């Protein structure tokens, strides 16, 4: 295969992987404590939430990529479709979760890590239940989550469309490889976060994002090399077999 194409596949795997890691760091993830309104964020794990939103984006991206039947799909438009799809998934989830906190448990969404919401300038401390780490999704966490969903979905869809267009993988194989690279990066980011994070305003974000992105670069590079080797040595691999 043309070396330029191989480099393109490698670069898209690296960029997609790094964006996936950045997306996970931006999500407000409260894990198990959030299910008891003991911590701010969405009441599930980083990997679960990010993968759920990214595959929703991938679903839309794959449909959009199939618009171009006899030519290469527009990479930017397909990746943007994936990003917007993931953003909507995370947006609806956070909004209805907040509805459950407010109307199901009578709780005001507040941050536990900052005294004032950096975007709306609303004070947080006096609304927080003592001996908790915040609860619900305050506006800054919501906006951070929307950006995180967009960035992660964009990364996943970017890997998918490059593999489908230039490595000539079948949609199913391209989808599985994209999800694989994505989940590897999401798990690494979850280990880096180590528990809960509220979004870009959380002091943890600034502390750990550098290491997280570097680790994502290394893992994505390895994944990219594996894909390039597979494409070069087994050209029929991407045809998808029975799928």
């Amino acid at each position, binding site marked *: 295969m043309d070396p330029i194409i191989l480099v393109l596949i490698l670069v898209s795997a690296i960029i997609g992987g790094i964006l996936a890691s950045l997306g996970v760091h931006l999500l407000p993830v409260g*894990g*198990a404590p*959030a*299910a*008891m*309104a*003991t911590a701010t964020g969405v*009441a*599930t*794990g980083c990997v*679960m939430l990010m*993968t*759920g*939103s990214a*595959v*929703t984006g991938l*679903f*839309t991206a*794959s449909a*959009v*990529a*199939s*618009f*171009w039947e006899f030519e290469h799909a*527009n990479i930017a*438009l397909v990746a*943007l*479709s994936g990003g*917007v*799809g993931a*953003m*909507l*998934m995370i*947006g*609806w*989830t956070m*909004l*209805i*979760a907040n*509805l*459950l*906190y407010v109307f*199901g*448990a*009578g709780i*005001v969404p507040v941050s536990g890590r900052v005294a004032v919401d950096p975007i*709306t300038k*609303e004070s947080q401390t*006096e*609304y927080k*239940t003592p001996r908790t780490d915040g*609860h*619900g*999704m305050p*506006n800054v966490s*919501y*906006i951070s989550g*929307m950006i995180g969903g967009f960035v992660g979905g964009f990364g996943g869809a970017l890997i998918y469309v490059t593999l489908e267009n230039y490595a000539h993988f079948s*949609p199913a194989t391209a989808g599985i490889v994209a999800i694989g690279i994505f989940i590897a990066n999401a798990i690494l980011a979850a280990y880096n976060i180590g528990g809960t994070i509220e979004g870009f305003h959380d002091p943890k974000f600034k502390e750990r994002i550098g290491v997280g992105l570097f680790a994502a670069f290394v893992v994505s590079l390895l994944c990219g090399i594996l894909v390039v080797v597979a494409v070069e040595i087994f050209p029929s691999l991407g045809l998808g077999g029975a*799928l």
Partner: protein
Amino acid sequence: MEPIVMVFAWTMVVIVLAFIACLFEDLESDEGSQSNPNSQVQLAPEMGYIHRYYNKAISGEGLSYALACTIAGTVAWAMLSTGITPLIAIPFGAGIGSLVHMIRATIPHLGRESAHKRFEQPIYLDVFFGHLVPIATHNFMAVVCITAIAYIQSPSGPLAAITGLPVAANNPFPLPLLCFIWGITVGAIGSSTGDIHYGTERLFQDRPFGEGRRVVYHGQICRYADCGIRTSKDVVAFCAKYGGPATGLTFGLIVLFENWRTLIGMMAGGLTGGSWSPGVAAGVGIVIGLIIAVALTVGNLYLVKWARKKFGPFVGE
């Protein structure tokens, strides 16, 4: 009938199925106490709170449902490829997926409750046997709906059979992969939203309403029902009134707006007449999606503002 009308009609079917799927997914996780709030059921015996909840922590809901749905989708796909009608293949596949789920629900409960022997937590056999069938039936409802959604959207489904459009209306992914995608998504949503009503409210119903559950309360779960001792079946009856439908609504709205914006984009790109322009179709879909995202953010701003005004600052110790 016009092809575009058929596309919208099948999309409506998908949205209704999505609502039912996620509703039952959340109720199943309440029935067996899976996912995040189960940390409290797990902790309770260590705090001296002997309980009659079902203790099923197989894995995160996303992974658990991805597996159940993928098994169902693979079985259904294999049956469909031999020419069996979808009306038999889809429920049969979902049945196999639910049976595997029931096996996975059995082992964690017995294993975890046995491990709690040191805290004098017994294994109640009536709780064990009484919850297995409801777990399987709730799971079946979720999995059969997800498999049906995946079938409708797959290249072998009814959307692909609609002719007369410049571009195929179906998704290019095969049935098992679509089952995997929707399985992970439905689990992630059920875990993110439905758990709140169970974990924050139902498990701590004897604590003051309107405050986050403090760390000191953890493990001290509410063990008494309206009449007698509470089991996980009482949790389902409670969460079916708000947490379950809200979770179903989340997935239904996601599927609705994802499909709607894509279809509107396709119509703008010439799906119903004129020359087909994939760039315009994709672009319009993206712009509509961004407008919805802005509307959601404004909605959250309003909700937080309303809650702060209505409830006021925290009162109490």
